[in-house]
């Protein structure tokens, strides 16, 4: 029989299980966002300019690589701020712990940088090209199809690894039932792709590309809604601890923010708006992509905080 009252004298500051704060949520969002930019720009690079028929195709430009570089660097700064023993951060890079997703992540982040920097070096912004003549010479390699396609493949691989690992990072921590689902990997990846597509949508100067990205984002949002449904069904039909964890989002304290902001504002509303835009019923605006980005951030916050509120209970 479960106890009706449970008192513990363990009162250390993390005894309630809330060890991770906004830094981790922000990092998971920016990591996923960068992963989305990497995968989408990799696909665009592999298809090449012929597929779009126009120069200045935003996805394959260095502009998105620069945004990705800024986003992942901000994310890593957030991660660093979260560390309690900062002078020892170098310890991440003198070992490889194959069972630790965080160790994989540390090395994946090192892979991401050269890919982003190569993307920028092959198509440097004009201001940079004028100042550094060596970059202008390097940019000639961008015209080589093998270089372009190779960079595209590296970009896709680095993006997939980065996007999936941010979800696996949480699901590998067995003590938190809300996180013990392998679906968090694909969910975070698709959310990252969706936020990346939303940003590229806003950044693209081409109507045709914006149209394509809106259609792609609608598909990604639909997949994300399906993954969320499967994730909740999986938890709710599992053990008591997992079903209790699912209740945090299905009637518990995180229900309102999850369904209203993450699902309503962040997925259903932009899906509806973009569906009307694609059908030509309303003029394209930045409203839907902004909502997708808000939903992506709040999804990470809800899962990081609700996950830590879920536990194997003695009550």
């Amino acid at each position, binding site marked *: *029989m*479960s*106890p*009706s*009252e*449970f*008192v*513990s*004298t*363990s*009162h*250390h*500051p*993390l*005894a*309630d*299980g809330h*060890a*991770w704060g906004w830094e981790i949520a922000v990092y998971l969002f920016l990591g996923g966002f960068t992963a989305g930019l990497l995968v989408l720009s990799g696909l665009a690079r592999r298809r090449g300019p012929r597929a779009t028929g126009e120069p200045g195709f935003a996805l394959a430009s260095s502009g998105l690589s620069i945004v990705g570089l800024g986003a992942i660097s901000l994310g890593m700064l957030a991660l660093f701020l*979260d*560390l*309690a*023993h*900062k002078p*020892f*951060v170098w*310890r*991440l890079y*003198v*070992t490889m*712990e194959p*069972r*630790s*997703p*965080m*160790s994989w*992540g*540390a090395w994946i982040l090192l892979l991401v940088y050269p890919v982003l920097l190569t993307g920028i070096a092959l198509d440097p912004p004009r201001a940079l090209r004028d100042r550094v003549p060596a970059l202008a010479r390097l940019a000639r390699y961008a015209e080589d199809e093998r270089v372009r396609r190779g960079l595209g493949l590296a970009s896709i691989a680095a993006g997939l690894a980065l996007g999936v690992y941010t979800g696996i990072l949480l699901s*590998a*921590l*067995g*003590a*938190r039932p809300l996180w013990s689902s392998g679906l968090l990997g694909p969910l975070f990846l698709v959310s990252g792709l969706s936020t990346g597509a939303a940003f590229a949508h806003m950044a693209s100067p081409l109507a045709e590309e914006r149209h394509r990205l809106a259609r792609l984002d609608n598909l990604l949002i639909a997949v994300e809604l399906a993954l969320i449904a499967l994730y909740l069904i999986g938890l709710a039909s599992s*053990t008591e*601890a997992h079903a209790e964890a699912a209740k945090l989002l299905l009637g518990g304290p995180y229900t309102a923010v999850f369904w209203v902001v993450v699902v309503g504002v962040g997925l259903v509303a932009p899906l509806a708006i973009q569906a009307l835009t694609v059908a030509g019923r309303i003029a394209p605006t930045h409203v839907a992509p902004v909502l997708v980005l808000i939903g992506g951030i709040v999804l990470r916050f809800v899962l990081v905080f609700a996950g*830590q509120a879920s*536990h*194997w209970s*003695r009550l």
Partner: protein
Amino acid sequence: MTRLGMVIDTRRCVGCQDCVVACKTENRTPEGYNRDWITYATKGRFPTLSMTIQSERCNHCDDPPCVSCCPTGASHVHPWGGVVLIDHDACIGCKACVVSCPYDARYIHPDGYADKCTFCIHRVERGQDPACVSVCPTHCMHFGDLDDPESEVSRLLASRPHHANLPEAGTGPRIFYLD
């Protein structure tokens, strides 16, 4: 293989917190932090109530999630006895181990590294019991090798009904409570 573990008799434990104080003194844990603690679980409805008092700490699990999630190898299993330990100078304070522990046994020391019960490995290697076990005034705590069928802990487990905390979390806890 030596598998160090603890057997605690809930019929003898009175919740005096001597184990908590002994640990704090022995391991000089900072103010506000304890490596072991007492829980009081009350079952039933008034007036038919029963209370179980337990002295709790890190379970030094057979399959410790805090060790597998550690990105630097700071959290590790000691080659002798399977005790779960932390190399403070390799810990970056990422708190993954704190989040991964079903028992909330870990905390972040004010100096920045993760910290928890060591089974007083420094005493055990000298042939002594952990501090908490050595001071228990009701002798409700027993420490030894769970893999040795002749050890006191193995004999107690073989002769008395017992339970572990949250075995469903699947980590293989090595602290057992005699019912």
